[in-house]
Structure formats: structure tokens, C-alpha cells
């Protein structure tokens, strides 16, 4: 008799909200997804992606065996052969030095896997060249909020948002990208809270807004400073909070002494009166929460933007209380955890700076090695630039797809071709894997145990529901095997995800009190959790900031790296749609999700479409200084004149062929949100076609 149908509670693999769901399995296959009523975050609800989280698991294109590039074609080999080939990374390290090798880890992978991968970089390869896609999403949050508050994470919890009396959503298409967080905003709204939405596009959550602030991408500091200026002018700041808990208010005041709403209006394109109303609404609220995402971070001013958000919240005393806070919504399911685990070039596990001798010594002791690499490593974009310059010789990419997700893909391709060795470990043959010398097949999230840490720092268990396809293995197991092949097996003795977690607990202070047994609770545990009887910490900075006092840092508006001009007259901003996910390797193979948004498109305002000669649904070519792609024009006033929007999910028209590699100097995030482009029609629109056939 075959095994009966089974129901496995686990965590959604898509966004950072951390929703619980139930996988339905039969005969070794996941056949459906159900919502999980008991789960504290999702509460029996899911978004479209969550409901179809199972659809890619058994896709025919899953990698089932390692592949080796033999004379230009990828051929299946056994693990032994693949690992021996991959072990060449150690030879290249020996020949060129540890700074010539690098690793991209993955925010899709578990904490255990990120921990093993960063340890592999530091202990087996001897380099700090380890980074992951947090660099492309919330690096400025980590940099900015760490400086202002002492911790880079979301300050409050998701359900806390329901307690807010005013919510400012800035640069977050919340209903599309964090739907179950949007639910809390909707509920707050129905309880009488006011809502301010600042976004270049008319997004779904705008429908509920009391005040809309449709700013030009790149003018975030101008807007946030203007809100602060109004609050100061009307003396609505929280004097008591500022006096008791912050430093540096005078420098903030001085920096804005001459700033005017007229300047802000010119920079943002928002009427001064609306900026004023929004400032008064937020400052007048008993409990004001700020929610933000990529619209704040993906700019060369990303860290400044985050700092301005922190200033605004501190100025009004909106921290340390329920229903308030600065709430960066993390993108990937485990991007918070990947950062916690130290899959970053400048911090060891638990956010301990690499450039502190004491930290390195502590970790070296914990890992039983003599020393750890001293120099902070390269970030995502820097590694690829180093590869192009010939300085980085080998790259080991685990579950990332830079050939889709990084800026300026034409250059990424050249960089990958320059490498002497590219190892790609993934569940599908991604665009990046197409350039690989060795492809290692890994288990998907439904095929392994481990933990994810959600945007609200909630550590939760995922559970193995089925076996991986073919001879694919969990990422932690593959990387540990590779370490053994290279002679570093003694540092990677793990036999289960729990073995690794037990080591994480000893090394990462924030996780010290968390055990797998405690994580059997459907609520998981929120870090910091310093001891085994500690209940976890849903709210940060309640009595004092992690760094002591909160610090105001004045920031000034700066222009984006590229602004529209005569040759490239439109400002292109990139983003996502509700049913696709990032580089599309999962959602584009999920039929229900692909059917909603099957083709690349670009939103263009009717005004611009008119003078560009573009009709609705016609094919256009979008051209930037770095490349061009085709897309279908959607003429819509969702975007304002002068601004166009494109999702970046589509390999056939990858928006990141257009974007540039200008970086925020502090966090090294590229400016995905601002690219100067021009658009030309390729085929006549449908209407004209109809006329032509008449």
C-alpha cells in the first residue's frame, strides 16, 4: 500500500514575511499547498505565490545530477567527479591567493546553509569574498539603521502594524510584494488608522491611502527631509523622546535651516501642500509606523534614504512602542537570516565586524582554526568587476542568479566569461548556470530541513516533505562535501541541519537561546533570544537603542547617478509583479503564476506614449546607455509623465541589461531604481494593426 496523503507544516519559500503553509504530499510528491490557520503570521491566509509554492518542485527541468562542462556542453557526471572538478577552486586559491576566489551565497537558502557557506569561504578558502543578494536589496538598511539605531533589522513586528494610528508606506508595493504584511496595514486602516503612500507608481495599496505622495525615483531624501522640516517648523517633534533617547538633533536642525518646501516640490514633483499635510498627519499620530522597501534602498543614496527614514521616526518618538517603528520589509524568505549568519564580506556571524581582531580571534577559536582572513571582502557587484579585471579567478555561486539579478548584465556576462572557474549550485539550470564549468544540483526548500529567519527576525523551521530529485542534495551537504574534498572535512562534520544549528547557537549570540526543539512551536522565536528560557524579542529598542542613544545624521539630497536627458529622456524604474519572483527561476516554472504575468512589459504614461509614438500593447525597444531590450508597452497613468516601469523577471527581456552599476558609496547597492532610457516603437499597436487589415 502506498503511504497515505500527508500534511507537512513549513514556511513559504518566497518573500521575507515568513508565512506558514502546509505541503500536501502523496507518493513522494508534493501535490498541493494549503494555508495553515495556526500560523501566527499568515493566520490561514496566503498570497497567490504561497498557494502555488509547490508548482515548481517537481518541474521536469529540475537538476537531478551534477553537470560538467566538457568542450562547451554540460554533461551529467557523478558526485565524485563533480566534486573533484569543483575542488579546483582550492588550487586556484593556492595559485592566485585567497582574494582571487569568491562566493555568492543565497538568501533563498536556510540559515544552516548560509552559515556553512560563509564558513567555507573563511575557513576552507581563507577569504572574506562572500556576499549575497542582500547587497541588492537591503544593504542600505543594515548600514543606515546600524548607524542610527545600532541594529539593521525591522524594529517592530508584523502584527504590530495593526496597532498603528498612522502608517507611512514609502517605496513598497506592499500588497504585491508582501501581501500578508499589507493585510496588517489594511486592518489598521479599517480600525481607523490613516495611511500615507509615497511611491512613484499608483500601486494597489494607494487605493486605501489618505494622502498620496507620487515622488520621482531618486528624490526620497528631498521628500523625507521636507517632512522633517515641516515637523520642525510646526514644533511637532517629540521633545521628550529626543532629549531622553537621541543625540545630534541640533545638527539635523542646522542642516535643514534653509531647506524649503518649494525645493522639495521641484525635486519630488509633489505639491508642497501635500507634503505638509502628510507631515502633519504622521507627526500628529499617536503611533506612527514607517514601512519601506526597495524604493528606499535601491539608490546610490540608499543609505542616506534609510538614514532620513530613521531621522523622521526618531524626531516623532515613533520607536520602541507598539504600532510604531522603522520597518524595512526584507525581500527574500531568508535574507535576514543570511545576514545574521555572516554571509557578508565585512561581518562575521552575528554582525561582528571582520576588521576587529577580537572578533576574528573569537570566531577562530570557535571554529578551531589558527586565524581568519583579515581584509574585508568584495561585495556582489565588486566581485564581478574584479572578475572582469582578471583579479577574481574563481566564483562559487550558490542559489543566486547574477545573470538576471545584477545590474548591467552585458558586463556580468563578460565578467563570468573571464573566470577560470565558475561553479553554480542551484535547483534549475539558471541563466548564470549556463556559463558554469560545473553545475551542482541542490535540494529545494521542500526537500530539506533547516530554518529561515523572516523580516521580523522570526526564526522558523522548514521541514523536509519529499526527497530531492535524482542525486541532488541539500546545499549544506554539498558545500560540506566540497570542503571534505579539499581536505577541510574536520571543520564541516555536520550530518544534519540540526547539527549545524547547534553550532550556530554557540557562535551567533542573537540565536543562543534558540533550539530546534523550541522551534517546534508554530510561532518560532524572534531574535535576540539570549538564553533557553528567553521568550524572544518581537520589538527592538524598547528601552534604549541597541547602540545606546539613537543618532540623528543629517543627509542632503543628491541627484541619481543618471538623470534623463535629451538622448535618454525617460526615467526607468524597475521592480516586480505580484506573481513572479525575482529572476523567475521558480515562478516562471509555476504555471499558475506564470499565467498571470507571462510576458515582459513596460508601463509608460499616456503623455510620454503620445510623443514617443507608442500605442497600447505595441512592442517597443527600451534602450539605455548599456543595452536594450524589447517589451510590450502598457500605456497607463499608473506611472507619471517622464517615468517608466519594468519588472526584471524576464530573461528574454532582462531589465537589468539596462540598469547601471553606480553604487551607493556606503552600502554598495546598485541604483536599480533609476536608469535613463529612451523607448522606440517596434511594431504598430493592435489598433493600428486592425486598421491595416481593413
Amino acid at each position, binding site marked *: *500500500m502506498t503511504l497515505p496523503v500527508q500534511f507537512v*507544516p513549513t514556511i513559504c519559500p518566497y518573500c521575507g514575511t515568513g508565512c506558514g503553509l502546509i505541503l500536501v504530499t502523496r507518493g513522494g510528491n508534493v501535490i498541493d499547498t494549503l494555508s495553515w490557520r495556526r500560523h501566527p503570521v499568515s493566520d490561514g491566509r496566503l498570497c497567490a505565490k504561497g498557494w502555488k509554492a509547490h508548482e515548481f518542485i517537481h518541474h521536469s527541468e529540475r537538476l537531478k545530477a551534477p553537470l560538467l562542462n566538457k568542450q562547451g556542453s554540460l554533461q551529467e557526471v557523478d558526485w565524485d567527479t563533480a566534486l573533484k572538478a569543483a575542488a579546483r577552486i582550492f588550487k586556484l586559491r593556492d595559485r592566485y591567493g585567497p582574494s582571487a576566489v569568491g562566493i555568492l551565497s543565497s538568501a533563498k537558502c536556510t540559515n544552516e546553509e548560509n552559515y556553512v557557506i560563509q564558513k567555507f569561504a573563511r575557513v576552507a578558502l581563507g577569504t572574506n569574498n562572500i556576499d549575497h543578494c542582500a547587497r541588492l536589496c537591503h544593504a542600505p538598511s543594515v548600514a543606515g539603521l546600524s548607524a542610527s539605531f545600532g541594529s539593521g533589522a525591522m524594529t517592530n513586528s508584523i502584527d504590530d502594524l495593526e496597532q498603528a494610528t498612522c502608517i507611512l508606506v514609502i517605496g513598497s508595493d506592499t500588497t504585491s510584494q508582501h501581501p500578508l504584511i499589507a493585510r496588517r496595514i489594511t*486592518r489598521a486602516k479599517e480600525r481607523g488608522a490613516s495611511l500615507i503612500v509615497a511611491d512613484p507608481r499608483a500601486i494597489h495599496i494607494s487605493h486605501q491611502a489618505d494622502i498620496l505622495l507620487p515622488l520621482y525615483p531618486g528624490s526620497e531624501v528631498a521628500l523625507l527631509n521636507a517632512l522633517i522640516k515641516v515637523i520642525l517648523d510646526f514644533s511637532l517633534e517629540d521633545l521628550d523622546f529626543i532629549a531622553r533617547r537621541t543625540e545630534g538633533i541640533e545638527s539635523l536642525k542646522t542642516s535643514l535651516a534653509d531647506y524649503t518646501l518649494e525645493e522639495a516640490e521641484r525635486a519630488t514633483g509633489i505639491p508642497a501642500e501635500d507634503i505638509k499635510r502628510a507631515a502633519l498627519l504622521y507627526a500628529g499620530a499617536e503611533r506612527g509606523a514607517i514601512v519601506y522597501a526597495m524604493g528606499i534602498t535601491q539608490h546610490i543614496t540608499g543609505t542616506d534614504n534609510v538614514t532620513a527614514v530613521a531621522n523622521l521616526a526618531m524626531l516623532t518618538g515613533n520607536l520602541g512602542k507598539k504600532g510604531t517603528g522603522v520597518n524595512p520589509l526584507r525581500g527574500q524568505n531568508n535574507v535576514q537570516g543570511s545576514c545574521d549568519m555572516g554571509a557578508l564580506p565585512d561581518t562575521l556571524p552575528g554582525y561582528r565586524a571582520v576588521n576587529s581582531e577580537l572578533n576574528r580571534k573569537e570566531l577562530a577559536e570557535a571554529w578551531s582554526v589558527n586565524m581568519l582572513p583579515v581584509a574585508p571582502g568584495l561585495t556582489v557587484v565588486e566581485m564581478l568587476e574584479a572578475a572582469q579585471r582578471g583579479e577574481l579567478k574563481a566564483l562559487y555561486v550558490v542559489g543566486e542568479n547574477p545573470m538576471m539579478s545584477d545590474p548591467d548584465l552585458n558586463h556580468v556576462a563578460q565578467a563570468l566569461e573571464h573566470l577560470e572557474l565558475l561553479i553554480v549550485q542551484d535547483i534549475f539550470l539558471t541563466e548564470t548556470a549556463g556559463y558554469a564549468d560545473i553545475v551542482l544540483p541542490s535540494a529545494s526548500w521542500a526537500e530539506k530541513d533547516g530554518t529561515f529567519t523572516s523580516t521580523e527576525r522570526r526564526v522558523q523551521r522548514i521541514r523536509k516533505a519529499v526527497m530531492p530529485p535524482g542525486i541532488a542534495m541539500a546545499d549544506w551537504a554539498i558545500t560540506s562535501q566540497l570542503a571534505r574534498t579539499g581536505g577541510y572535512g574536520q571543520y564541516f562534520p555536520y550530518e544534519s541541519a540540526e547539527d549545524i544549528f547547534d553550532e550556530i547557537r554557540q557562535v551567533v549570540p542573537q540565536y543562543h537561546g534558540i533550539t530546534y526543539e523550541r522551534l517546534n512551536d*508554530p510561532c518560532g522565536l524572534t531574535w535576540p533570544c539570549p538564553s533557553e528560557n528567553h521568550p524572544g524579542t518581537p520589538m527592538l529598542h524598547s528601552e534604549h537603542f541597541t547602540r545606546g542613544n539613537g543618532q540623528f545624521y543629517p543627509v542632503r539630497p543628491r541627484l541619481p547617478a543618471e538623470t534623463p536627458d535629451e538622448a535618454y529622456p525617460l526615467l526607468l524604474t524597475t521592480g516586480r509583479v505580484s506573481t513572479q519572483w525575482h529572476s523567475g527561476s521558480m515562478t516562471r516554472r509555476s504555471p499558475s503564476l506564470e499565467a*498571470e504575468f507571462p510576458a515582459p512589459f513596460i508601463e509608460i504614461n499616456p503623455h510620454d506614449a503620445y510623443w514617443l509614438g507608442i500605442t497600447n500593447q505595441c512592442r517597443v525597444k527600451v534602450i539605455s546607455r548599456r543595452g536594450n531590450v524589447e517589451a510590450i508597452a502598457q500605456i497607463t497613468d499608473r506611472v507619471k509623465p517622464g517615468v517608466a516601469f519594468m519588472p526584471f523577471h524576464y530573461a528574454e527581456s532582462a531589465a537589468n541589461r539596462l540598469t547601471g552599476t553606480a553604487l551607493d558609496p556606503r552600502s554598495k547597492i546598485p541604483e536599480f531604481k533609476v536608469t535613463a532610457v529612451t523607448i522606440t516603437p517596434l511594431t504598430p499597436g493592435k489598433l493600428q494593426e486592425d486598421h491595416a487589415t481593413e
Partner: protein
Amino acid sequence: MDYGVTIRQIGQALLERHIVSQVLAFTHGLDGKDVMPSLITSPEELARITIVSRQPLSLAKVISRYVDPAVRLAVVVRPCDARAIIELAKRNQLDRDNYYLIGITCYGTIDKAEGLTSEVYVFPDHIEANGENYDLNESLLLPHCRRCGFAFPDMADVTYDFAGGHLKANTPRGQEMLSISGLVEQGQKIDTTALEERTKRWRTNDFAIAGSSPQTRLDYWLHQFDKCIKCYGCRNSCPLCYCKDCYLDADRGLVEPGKIPPSLLFHLTRIIHVADSCLNCGQCEMACPSDIPLSRLSQELQLDLGSIFDYTPGTDIISPPPLDTLGTKEGNK
């Protein structure tokens, strides 16, 4: 207290005599508030069954979607699941004869009530949590449960009232189930006057919007549907949305793909599709990330339609779906 003894006794007899090969029921989940559906194959595992007053998903949906139709199955059902099974059988989605329905009475279910951390049972006049009795605070009950009016699963083969110990066979199969379990019918139905009053009161309360002006009603529902994020959760969790090829799917061309909120066609199509069979199980509403009171709308429609056709979904397998009976006489009604 554990009220599941009788249920497990029946399940045990059915499994041990190989009358069924699996028992489908809710079992203890990861903590006291969590229950998970389980398909149990051995008598020892029956101890995991719980009949606490929680109903996080539809077991009827589990049967029709996931379980091999060849499996002889016993199912521990609340009235809404029993009625869904009847409706599905009537629409040829499953074979009623395959199922041994062990019905438990239901006086309402609870979602996440603060403090009620563990074993929670809703009685007609009080709530028992962790062995202690509390006053019945109706606001703790799920909204659709307050309007339900079906406490007794008399469409199942056996009815067991955990509140009063009443045990009854409703079918010849039910008599066989009791006899092989060494059980006899006992007790009688409790007085349901207070329950009927509660149902009526909450229906009046929840359907108040229907009594307002067409414009007010329209504005209300337009506002509700504007919140929709097109997750398909209402469809995915409905036990009666069984179409394998659904009109609402993005590739069917009825509803514009991707657009959020979807056009009203999305909701109207779905609700009309289940209007004659809606059991008010509430799963659609409990799955809605936008908290749209969906079951309120579909129950109201079903009650309207039901009163015209004199039809109550899921009560017996004989009466055909109402629109099946549409005839020339209808014009005179």
C-alpha cells in the same frame, strides 16, 4: 477533558476489521492551538485524533482533491464537512458509498482566542478550555459559525454529541458502525431553542447591509472587493470549488490576468458558481488576506436562493441541486 473516546472507538473497529483502510480526522498539531488533518492507517495512531472546536480547513476538500477514490475511508466530520461531502457526491465528485462518516456535533468553532491556548470545546452554553469552564463569549466564535444553524451532523452515518453524550445511527451503515464498535444508541438531542435564537440573531446582524439601499450595498461591496489581491485563496479553500479547469484561471481569458484588484467578474463568477451549494463553512472568508466577509455574501445568496427552491444544501443526497429543478412553474412563484 478528552471528548474523542467514542469517535476513536468507532475508528478502531473500522480499521481493525479492515472495513476502512484509513481514517481521516484532525489530529493534534504542533501545539495546543494547532490541529492538522491526518490520514490514519493503524489503530495505535487513533490516539492522535482530537475533536477540539477548531476547523482550519475543509476535510471534504481533502477527500475530493487528494485521496485516491479507491480508498475506503472513515471520516470524522463536523456538519459543514458532512454537508460538503453530500453536495460533492450529488455532483458526482465523489462516491458517498466509499465513506464512513462519523459525525460530531458542532456548536461553533474558534480560531485564535487569546488565552485559550489548548484543548478548547465550544458547548451550547459555555466554553471549556483546558478543563475549565468559561462563559460563552460569542465574539470568540468564528463569524460564520455564529450564523450556522447546523449543530447536528445528521447527514453523516453516525451522530455523536460530545456535549450531551447523545449517540445515534442515521443510516443502516451507521447502525453497523455502532454495532461493530460495541456501542448502542443513547441519549437524545439537546434542546436547541437557544442555538436557533443565536443563529437568527447573528444572521440579522450580519445581513443588515442587505436591508440598506442598493447604493449603500453596492458601495460596501465595491469597497470590500477593491481590497482583493487575487490570491485565489477563496477558491482554493472552498470545498465546493471543484472544477479542474476553472474559469477564474488567468489563462482562461475571462478575468484579465495579473490585474489587482481583479474585475468584479472574478468574485461574481465564483459566488454564483457556489450560490446553490454554499454550506457557509466559512473557509473562503478565513482564507482571505483582505478580510473580505465572503461567506456572509454567499450564505445570504444561498439562503435567498434556497428559500425560492426550498433547498438546503448538504442535508440529503436525494434532492437534486436547485437549478436542476428549474421548470415552467418557477415563473409563478
